[in-house]
């Protein structure tokens, strides 16, 4: 009886669109030019939001903001695979997801301006509030998936988080439950290589984050997170599997946080400009542009136009946001609980 092998596992990486914008035709998802243009324009929109948010923050018109630059493909690609009935549990760095799903732009600005009212998800979307507490929303996604299964709703649930979140106890407890109950949930980790100043190598000794799924008895896959097609495919497959009772999937999107952690951070303190430059060269938008250009449906003009449309959307949204009346003090009590206690009522009256 020598040591007997009782199980073997493989972790794979999916990529379709390479850095030069050349796609593997065999793997390429069926997407019309129109759909690809939509992806492209959403990525531009996300980038435009980022740039505008940074500018507003510098001018003191916005609070702390966590830019997504570099992660547009991971966010737009995955969100494009989500259906309106699906439930989405974002972290705090998913502007691209919010925008792709149609969350009102002005409200995203409003939230980051320190106004809770930005969190009111429109009725036609099932997006949970931004979750700043890293990884702690993962069990909520799991619970929603349990409830959806109980209700026999033919939907799936998606949770987004970062590489840092994989170290949290709630990641583990949530993943484990998802496995045990074989729930219709897709976990999307944007491994952007950093959790503030902690590189992923110091976050875990695992060679990939995808392999963490082995611990929970379901599939984990790594995708090139700057490849919008691979992200889209992996997410679509996982969502279909989830809706078809095939259980959860963990998708690790390898990407990079090109900007500072937030406007309160200075990434220069902990990482080299060479590293950043190398990743800038792998820009997901550029890559898609190259693909579209090679396929003949991108031109300088179109790019310029699309950018200026994105920018105009921002003008409009910022205008709208700045037109929102400031919240009243009593607003603190508005949603504190369904009905106020006598003490709370007195406190509200006393404001």
């Amino acid at each position, binding site marked *: 009886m020598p040591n007997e092998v009782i199980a073997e596992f493989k972790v794979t990486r999916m990529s379709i669109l390479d850095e030069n914008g050349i796609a593997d035709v065999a793997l390429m998802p069926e997407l019309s030019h129109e759909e690809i243009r939509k992806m492209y324009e959403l990525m531009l929109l996300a980038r435009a939001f980022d740039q505008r948010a940074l500018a507003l923050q510098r001018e003191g018109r916005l609070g702390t903001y966590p830019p997504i630059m570099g992660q547009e493909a991971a966010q737009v690609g995955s969100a494009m695979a989500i259906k309106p009935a699906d439930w989405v549990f974002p972290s705090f760095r998913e502007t691209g997801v919010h925008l792709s799903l149609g969350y009102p732009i002005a409200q995203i600005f409003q939230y980051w301006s320190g106004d809770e009212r930005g969190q009111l*998800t429109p009725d036609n979307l099932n997006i949970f509030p931004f979750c700043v507490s890293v990884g*702690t929303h993962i069990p909520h996604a799991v619970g929603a998936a349990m409830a959806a299964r109980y209700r026999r709703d033919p939907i799936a649930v998606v949770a987004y988080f970062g590489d840092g979140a994989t170290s949290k106890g709630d990641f583990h407890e949530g993943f484990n*439950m998802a496995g045990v109950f074989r729930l219709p949930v897709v976990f999307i980790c944007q491994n952007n290589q950093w959790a503030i100043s902690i590189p992923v190598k110091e976050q875990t000794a695992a060679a990939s984050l995808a392999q963490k799924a082995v611990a929970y008895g379901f599939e984990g896959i790594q995708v090139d997170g700057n490849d919008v097609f691979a992200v889209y495919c992996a997410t679509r497959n996982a969502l279909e599997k989830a809706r078809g009772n095939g259980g959860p999937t963990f998708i690790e999107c390898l990407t990079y946080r090109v900007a500072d952690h937030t406007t309160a951070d200075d990434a220069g303190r902990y990482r080299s400009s060479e590293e950043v430059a190398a990743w800038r060269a792998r820009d997901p938008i550029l890559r898609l542009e190259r693909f579209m250009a090679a396929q003949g449906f991108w031109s300088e003009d179109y790019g310029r136009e699309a950018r200026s449309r994105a920018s105009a959307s921002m003008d409009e949204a910022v205008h709208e946001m700045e037109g929102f009346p400031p919240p009243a003090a009593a607003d603190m009590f508005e949603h504190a609980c369904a009905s106020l206690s006598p003490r709370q009522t007195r406190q509200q009256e006393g404001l």
Partner: protein
Amino acid sequence: MAKLNMVQAINLALREEMARDDRVVVMGEDVGRDGGVFRVTEGLREHFGAERVIDTPLSESGIVGAATGMAAYGLRPVAEIQFMGFIYSALDQLSAHGARLRTRSRGRYTCPLVVRTPYGAGIKAPELHEESSEAIFCHIPGIKVVAPSGPYTAKGLMLAALRDPDPVLYLEPTRLYRLIREEVPEGEYLTELGRARLARTGDNVTVIAWGSMLERVLKAVEPYSADVIDLLTLSPFDAETVLASVRKTGRAVIVHEAIKTCGLGAEIAATIAEDAILHLRAPVLRVTAPDVPVPLGKLIDHYLPTAEQIRAALDEVLQY
């Protein structure tokens, strides 16, 4: 009408409400096949199936977190934490999420969640099986905290908790689980959340207690003319009833089995000191456990407030 103990009364409440409302699901460690380590959920799995009576992995934070997601989706989960001593790792989920979901989502998502947990000392169980840390949860806006003092209120409070649109922490005094039998009607009656109950009336002093201490207080005060207030809802607590009684008696003694410092007794005393000071004739005394970790079984009777300590406090305030 049947005489039930508290285990049976809570079980009955769950059973009736599950029959009435298919949104109610029960979840936790050993709640299903085993019927809960105290048998509070006994028979529910057989009756309502494994989909509604869910045995979970050993994950306190995950249980409360998943229940929060279920509640947001539209169910009405009842999550069990096997003993209050294991609830601390779920505090983040309760405090940063369950309690705030309504606020954070501006009312779009709510968290009608009941977290049940056996609490309190006196059963000579291992470490962390006899905790009474209700004050921590009373300091979290957005959660209600309740503690029944007998089978009748146990059922009424459970039904009220199950109908409440916000998270309710439901504390089950283990010492009372099988100690008291009371008439517990079948069918619906709600013990209103936020309302205390006058368990006994008198003239000279107000004694405030809840959970397993009520029984002890009622015995201790027999020779006195005391208002005894059974708080029932610990947060938000019924200040009006407390203040009205204290204004009448001029004296207040608060009894709880948690440690003294920053216990719920402090809030009650502070409220009296703020709003009824002119009516006070005596110091507001607290009879509590000492400020030490809950000891193991051999010392637990020295830890818990005794009838003698309660009487000593009454005698002291009655001197004024």
